[in-house]
């Protein structure tokens, strides 16, 4: 029974990883670059959520769960627009500049975002105002407990991921996106506005990331400015695990990483759970660099 409990917790954490991993994977798909700043955009979702919640609770004098909806819309919008801005300013001028330059630039953006958060909000742990997180839960048979928050998180993640999947597979814009990730030059010849598609990707990826930041902060209740880096790296591992550039792969990779990590922390030792995540990454890159569902990433001449 403890195993099932771990599994439920693992899938919950896995859905966070999946949401963030989608941002990495979509950007990699169209630009073939690792957006190191994605983790910090995600973290800004948590901070903006904090500001929004604090303002709303201050106005209503009491926290309650309905506040999540307006705050979520605001957070998604702001983080998504920041993502587009980052691409315009820091990545677009480097599109033809080789591999090293975009990596450095992305790391630079990550530092700016992290430093802003640390200096504006302080280096202390932040907690959301009380009352905004739905509490309570269901007891299943055998002492397994599933919280309301866990149910909400899972529903929200699956709805978001499902919507993204339908968008990419069923709409014209989604088809253009797939075309660009297959071959940007040919797509341009076919009349696809590649710059616009890249902007759309930087709207959706960080938007999902911002939503994930809010959800994660609500779920754990507290966080600090290191969230972006630690969580971002894990989500990136999830993206590689599933096969980078592959949208269902990111979802699968996130779930798997969440479950593996939770089981490892339950049955081996919580101290080593991060190490296990990194070892999973290294093993994947060594033995199946394509990831579970993805394209080939090892250099081949």
């Amino acid at each position, binding site marked *: 029974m403890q195993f099932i409990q771990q599994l439920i917790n693992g899938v919950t954490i896995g859905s966070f990883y999946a949401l963030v991993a989608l941002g990495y994977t979509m950007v990699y798909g169209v630009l073939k*670059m*690792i957006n190191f700043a994605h983790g910090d955009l995600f973290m800004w979702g948590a901070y903006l959520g904090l500001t929004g919640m604090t303002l709303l609770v201050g106005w209503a004098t009491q926290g309650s769960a309905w506040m999540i909806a307006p705050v979520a819309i605001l957070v998604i919008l702001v983080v998504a627009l920041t993502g587009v801005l980052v691409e315009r*300013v*820091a990545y677009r*001028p*480097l599109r*033809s*500049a*080789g*591999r*090293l*330059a*975009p*990596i*450095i*630039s992305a*790391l*630079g*953006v*990550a*530092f*700016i*975002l*992290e*430093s*802003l958060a*640390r*200096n504006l909000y302080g280096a202390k742990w932040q907690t959301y105002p009380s009352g905004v997180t739905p509490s309570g839960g269901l007891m299943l048979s055998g002492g397994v407990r599933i919280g309301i928050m866990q149910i909400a998180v899972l529903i929200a993640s699956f709805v978001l991921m499902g919507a993204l999947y339908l968008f990419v597979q069923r709409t014209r814009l989604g088809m253009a996106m797939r075309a660009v990730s297959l071959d940007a030059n040919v797509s341009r010849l076919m009349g696809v506005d590649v710059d616009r598609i890249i902007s759309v990707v930087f709207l959706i990826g960080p938007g999902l990331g911002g939503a994930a930041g809010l959800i994660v902060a609500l779920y754990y209740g507290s966080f600090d400015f290191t969230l972006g*880096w630690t969580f971002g*790296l894990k989500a*990136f*591992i999830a993206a*590689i695990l599933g096969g980078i550039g592959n949208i269902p792969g990111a979802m699968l990779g996130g779930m798997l990483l969440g479950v593996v990590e939770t089981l490892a922390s339950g049955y081996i030792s919580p*101290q*080593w759970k*991060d*190490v296990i995540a*990194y*070892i999973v*990454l*290294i093993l994947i*890159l*060594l033995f199946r*660099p394509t990831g579970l569902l993805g394209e080939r*990433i*090892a*250099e081949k*001449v």
Partner: protein
Amino acid sequence: MTQLLVRLRQRPLLWQAGLLVLAILLPLPLGDYYRTVIWRTGVYIILGLSLNIIVGYAGLFQLGHAAFYALGAYTAAILNLRLGVPLLATFPISVVVAGLFGYLITRPILHLRGDYLAIVTIAFGEVVRLALVNNLFGITGGANGLSGIQRPNLFGLELRQPIYHYYLMLFFLVITIFAVRRLEHSRLGRAWMYVREDEAAAEAMGIDTVQVKILAFVLGSGWAGLAGALYAAKLTVISPDLSKFMESVVMFCIVVLGGTGSIPGVFVGALGMVTLPELSRPLKEWRDAWLGIAMVAMMIARPEGLWPSRRVQLEIRETKE
């Protein structure tokens, strides 16, 4: 003025000796605080030069270099605290241990493409840090690290004051510069640059690319271990923070912002990344933000770095056009 420069260029020994005398005299008018600042800068120059072998010459992305810095420091500290080995005698062992880890860690991942190599090296750096924090084998002292390392003793002279450490660092810095200059123009150095510029062509010309890349990692990592031992010798206290990702990024930026593959570039990079933030307090709090802005701006405006090597500059200009 230009005539003077030309004459200096013709007589490298002259300006090299001049710089050395300047470096020897530099700490004399300064107080202990500034002596420590230039010592720190020097240690980061050594680190930058060691990373420059990997990133600059061989063109391999290493974003976990601080792990080897930490491994060198821990090797020196553990040998000294557990076995009573005199600190200066631990230096060569630190180099060997860090180099050995460099071999073990990078051997399996060499086939990975640039950005993936960067990710795996980040992961390895984190694994090393977490292993140190979790007190692996009970000898690393956990999150608090190790303290009470004996001060180095040179022929009965206990190296306590910052100025002694400055000269100790300078001694190794001079050796490092001499060594990397020789390496750069050696057969191996040319092979590295060939691999950096066109791996397939290098292989076709008979260069064993795997061996050449491993050598870059082993030499670079081992030399970072030396810098770690220097750190342990001065501070006598070390902690897992030495292998923080931020440290690796500072080293990476020293190399890239100064000018990839360029020795004077590493000096410029270390001045910008280590000395400047140390000297101006308000900048220190916002250091990461400034750093980020500098990184983005540099990549857009001057991707070859502030003081690039001619070869890299030509290469970057060419691919841009």
